């Protein structure tokens, strides 16, 4: 978390550059499931601002609400209380179709289980993300090839997920997430199912792409070493934000 000073400085420059338009603004955002005595509060009145281009790592034990937070930030779900603004647009006011459209236009997802479609080849999996867009088949294929190339999997394009290693599958998933040039990539424990070598390679890739593409990267993880690569670390417990490195860094700077 402390990192070397040069790295810190670099991050600092990047966040200042995109400070003008915050990507997310959460105001007392809550998400609870069920009603009455069985009501479970997964996220409890969270206040949070995420700047454009930030690389945010979210830590927390199981049940701390980090996946719920990721669902909300990924526009996969709506808050049951409070407000979440994405680029100034309150998500709680959007319907299913609008959320779907928002995900299509602005978000990319990377999952712990890779979530590749098992019956489709690597290239087709990338194309699946492009299918709802009104682009030609040729363009779709070119884009898919290009993004597989970017994650170093061009030779594996025609392989089915079962014919790929875990690391390769996750790289396909990253290619898929990035193929639509999203402004935000939401990653749910992307290294959770990988051995350390593959995990490191995937993180390497994510960090590099984040740097190159200036996307906002929000990543839930258990791996402490990932925090070192993140601009900002959030720690959740029992649905509350218990630690925010942005505040800490500010404190540290103040000290």
């Amino acid at each position, binding site marked *: 978390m402390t990192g070397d000073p040069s790295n810190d400085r670099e991050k600092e420059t990047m966040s200042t550059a995109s400070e003008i338009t915050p990507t997310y603004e959460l105001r007392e955002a809550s998400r609870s499931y069920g009603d009455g005595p069985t009501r479970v509060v997964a996220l409890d009145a969270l206040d949070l601002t995420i700047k454009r281009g930030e690389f945010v790592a979210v830590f927390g034990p*199981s*049940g701390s609400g980090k*996946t719920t937070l*990721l*669902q909300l930030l*990924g526009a*996969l*779900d709506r808050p049951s209380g409070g407000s979440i603004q994405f680029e100034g647009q309150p998500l709680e006011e959007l319907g*299913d*179709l609008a*959320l*779907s*459209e928002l*995900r*299509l*236009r602005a*978000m990319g*997802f990377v*999952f*712990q*289980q890779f*979530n590749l*479609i*098992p*019956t*489709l080849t690597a290239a*087709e999996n990338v*194309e*699946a*993300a*492009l*299918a*709802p867009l009104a682009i030609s*088949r040729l363009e*779709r294929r070119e884009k898919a090839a290009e993004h597989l190339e970017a994650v170093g999997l061009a030779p594996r394009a025609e392989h*089915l997920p079962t014919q790929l290693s875990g690391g390769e599958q996750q790289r396909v998933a990253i290619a*898929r997430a990035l193929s*639509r040039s999203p402004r935000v990539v939401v990653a*749910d*424990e992307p290294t*959770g199912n990988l051995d350390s070598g593959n995990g490191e390679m995937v993180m390497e890739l994510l960090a590099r792409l984040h740097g190159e593409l200036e996307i906002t990267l929000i990543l*839930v993880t258990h791996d402490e070493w990932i925090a070192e690569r993140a601009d900002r670390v959030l720690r959740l417990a029992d649905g509350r934000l218990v630690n925010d490195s942005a505040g800490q860094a500010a404190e540290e700077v103040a000290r």
Partner: protein
Amino acid sequence: MFYIRYLGAELRRRPGRTALTALGLAVGVGLVVVVGALSKGLDDAQAAVLEPLTGVGTDISVSRPLSVADDDGSGGAFGQLLPREQRQLQRENREHNREFNFAELGEPGERFAEDSFLSTQLSFPASEAAKIRALDGAEDAAATLTLNATHVEGVVPEGGAPPLGGPGAHAPGGGGFGAGGGFEFESVSVSGVDVRKPALAVVTPDQVTQGRYLSEAPKRARGEAVVDLAFARQNEIEVGEETEVAGEKFEVVGVASAPLGGDASDVYVELGQLQDLWDREGRINAIQVRAESADVVAGLEDEIVAQLEGADVVTAADLADRVGGSLADADDLSSKLGTVLAIVALLAAFLIATLLTLSSVQKRTRELGTLKALGWRQRLVVRQVTGESLVQGVLGGLLGAALGVGAAAIIDAIGPTLQASVEGQAAGGGGDPFASAFGQGNVAAGSTDVVLGAPVDVGLLALAVGLAIVGGLLAGAAGGLRAARLRPAEALRSAE
């Protein structure tokens, strides 16, 4: 289209599920095809039996049978007839009522031959046919006269001989001459047909299997005869040869195949000539009526009964009801059990397809949730799931049609024979020996074997494929509904 590629990949790379769903539907619709084909085959078999039975164009047959006063089913004797009817019948058969006097035939020891006609039905004027033709709903009517021509020959015995009393002594159908022994007795049923209306006649051109039908012009038809196949075989008569009826020679121009349950006289000749031979001009004893449509048959039947006193009216439907035997049983079976079986199989197939689709959607929760997370609109996801089921339905339909065609071909190859039997007597009572069903000929009672086929037509195959598609759509709708309810957040669920 990417969606189609995805759909193809799903079906191709999950061959087990695809095959299972398609096969389930295929078995269901295959059964429908087989049951449908069998049912059609049975209908065809029944039609094959009934077609000659009902005559080509005859809807109603009118005759005036003698009613038996005490219908106890013992059958047979004239003694049971009402006195008035006995008188009428005696009038019809006045020749026969003569005392059979051997003295008139010749000296004892001389050969003799005697021809006469015997009618077991009451005759009526031919004008009745015109009256019936004029009734509402009647399209046409043709007159027929059917008689038994009896031929007795032998040697005049010495001294007395057993008296030949009433016509009752002559059982229709011929046979020996009782105790006489030295006589030959022959009885030939002969029908006089209106050659101008061959389609309505008791023998139709369609029934002629060798030679030709009677000439259409009554004058030219005189001297011509069509003989029944069984009669021709029995008497070794061929087309072009001569046969004798009541001492008159006729040229056999054709041989007709006796229809099961229909009228089967031994010989068919021109009506006017038979009337002349019988020496009763303008008398007939049966009318074949064609109705304008099937709907008016019942009404027409009532009108005819009111019009012609003592008329016995038999409709084609009455005859059809009398077809029995294993054919009728099988038809019954196919229409009841077969249909139930097909419906059960189809429902089971639909259920299997639906459950498999639901289970597939369940298993693909994460996959479908991921698609939603990737921004696939609800509609696209539902379309994908439904599309897969639809294609499985089409596959199942084609496979089922193939299964059905195969099973039908096997049935055709085996060619099971069914027996169709027809009772010779008209319905009602224990059997009225004088009330033959159509006309007065010997109704060809008995049974016939019909080979059962299982014809599969395009309509049936289209129905099969259509049903399978319906099954696929049902399964797809169920799967699609479940997929629609999936929240995109499901994609992340497993991480929690």
